């Protein structure tokens, strides 16, 4: 069994995608961890749909403030210059294209960048939270997820079979074994986790991958 990256490491890799000065929204679950891994020397402004811009890393046990929470109900820390507003204003920023990057979790991503992350077959509609607004509104969509389901089925597919969040909204997929770019010409495998090969990643992917000319191992 090859080693797969843990959630912290996936979040670390995703956070490298944030350019200096970017406004970034972190979705429910694993994406929230990205706040702990901003590359040194960069300033990133994290926005949250409950009405907060410019927060810091996740709060440790002794600094938890339950009136300052992220989208995953986790307390975060304050940074100088951070501000608060109401949810209507938060979604003005989101739909109004003031958010540079959103990082979301996913059940499935299609080869065209369609995202399915809010409902599972056989369950009542639990609700999509802010995911549809974010997927439609953010300038760039990044997905962090496990490459396969718990029973080993591919999550990267030709067409999503789970309920759609938004179409053609994912630009980059970062999983526990690969970094894949979504392009008009299809999926490009950019990086593999240490020890993994192109064909091993392809075997666990239900859509066709093209190896990048500079395909490399993730630097962690």
């Amino acid at each position, binding site marked *: 069994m090859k080693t797969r990256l843990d959630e912290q490491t996936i979040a670390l890799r995703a956070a490298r995608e944030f350019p200096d000065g970017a406004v970034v929204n972190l979705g*429910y679950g694993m994406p929230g961890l990205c706040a702990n891994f901003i590359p040194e020397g960069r300033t990133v402004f994290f926005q*949250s*749909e*409950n*009405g*907060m811009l410019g927060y810091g890393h996740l709060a440790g046990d002794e600094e938890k*403030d*339950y*009136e*300052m*929470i992220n989208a995953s*109900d*986790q307390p975060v820390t304050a940074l100088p210059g951070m501000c*608060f*507003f*109401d*949810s*209507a204003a*938060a*979604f003005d920023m*989101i*739909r109004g294209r003031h958010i540079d990057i959103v990082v979301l979790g996913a059940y499935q991503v299609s080869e065209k960048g*369609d995202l399915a992350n809010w409902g*599972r077959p056989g*369950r*009542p*509609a*639990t*609700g*999509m*939270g*802010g*995911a*549809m*607004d974010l997927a*439609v*509104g953010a300038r760039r969509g990044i997905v962090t997820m496990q490459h396969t389901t718990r029973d080993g089925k591919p999550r990267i597919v030709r067409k999503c079979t789970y*309920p*759609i*969040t*938004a*179409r053609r909204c994912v630009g980059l997929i970062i999983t526990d074994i690969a970094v894949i770019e979504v392009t008009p010409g299809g999926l490009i495998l950019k990086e593999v986790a240490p020890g993994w090969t192109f064909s091993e990643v392809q075997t666990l992917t239900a859509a066709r991958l093209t190896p990048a000319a500079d395909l490399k191992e993730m630097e962690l």
Partner: protein
Amino acid sequence: MDKVISSVDEAIADIPDGAVIAIPGFFTCGVPRALLQALIRKGTKNLTLACGCGPLLGAAEEMRALVKNRQVKKVIDSYALYRSATKGMQDPFEQAVRAGEIELEVYPMGTMAEKYRAAGAGIPAFYTPTGVGSVVEETVVTNIEANRAPKETRIINGRKYILEYALKPDYAFVHALIGDREGNLRYAKTARNFNHVMATAARVTIAEVENLVEIGELDGDDVHTPGVYVHRVVKVERPRFAITID
């Protein structure tokens, strides 16, 4: 005008069966739990709880009681059930939704926020890009099949948008850090979330406040919700916070 009412029970005494009540709060943050507890004591039935970002997952004890007492007819929210299927199966609310005993109507969170803002601003409906390409574009998303009304769309400047309607609740319960006797409110950090837009939308807004101050003590520049939107103010204890979701 002094809008202070002496107790939460008195503040909600006139709410009739069948009322539509807006409940703000992002999970546990900014949820009007004292007013919800009064609603449980009063036993009002056939309620529609119009939410926005999962306050009933935060006020889990109150929701369990409301479901057990069969007080709820319908919930409108963007995120109302536990993500974990195992936890969901044990949740009385999800069981009632599965059985069709309570209707659960779902919209994207930004659409929920806009529904209240539109209602408060006298706008009957609006077009939004959110939901295009998903089931949200096709029909109202609800567990009750008969209520899955088709939605209208329109192409504006080459892009497709969905027509969504304003949502005007009969009452809004809001939770503020500070309120003065005229109903000017100030919230704490991310506890603001849906509180302000819901206050603007409802016919009657009832604010529970952790700190009740005299007129003039809350500086005009610090007011998040002007008192014109608030009809009743009641002093409550600061709620306890706990993480309950996953």
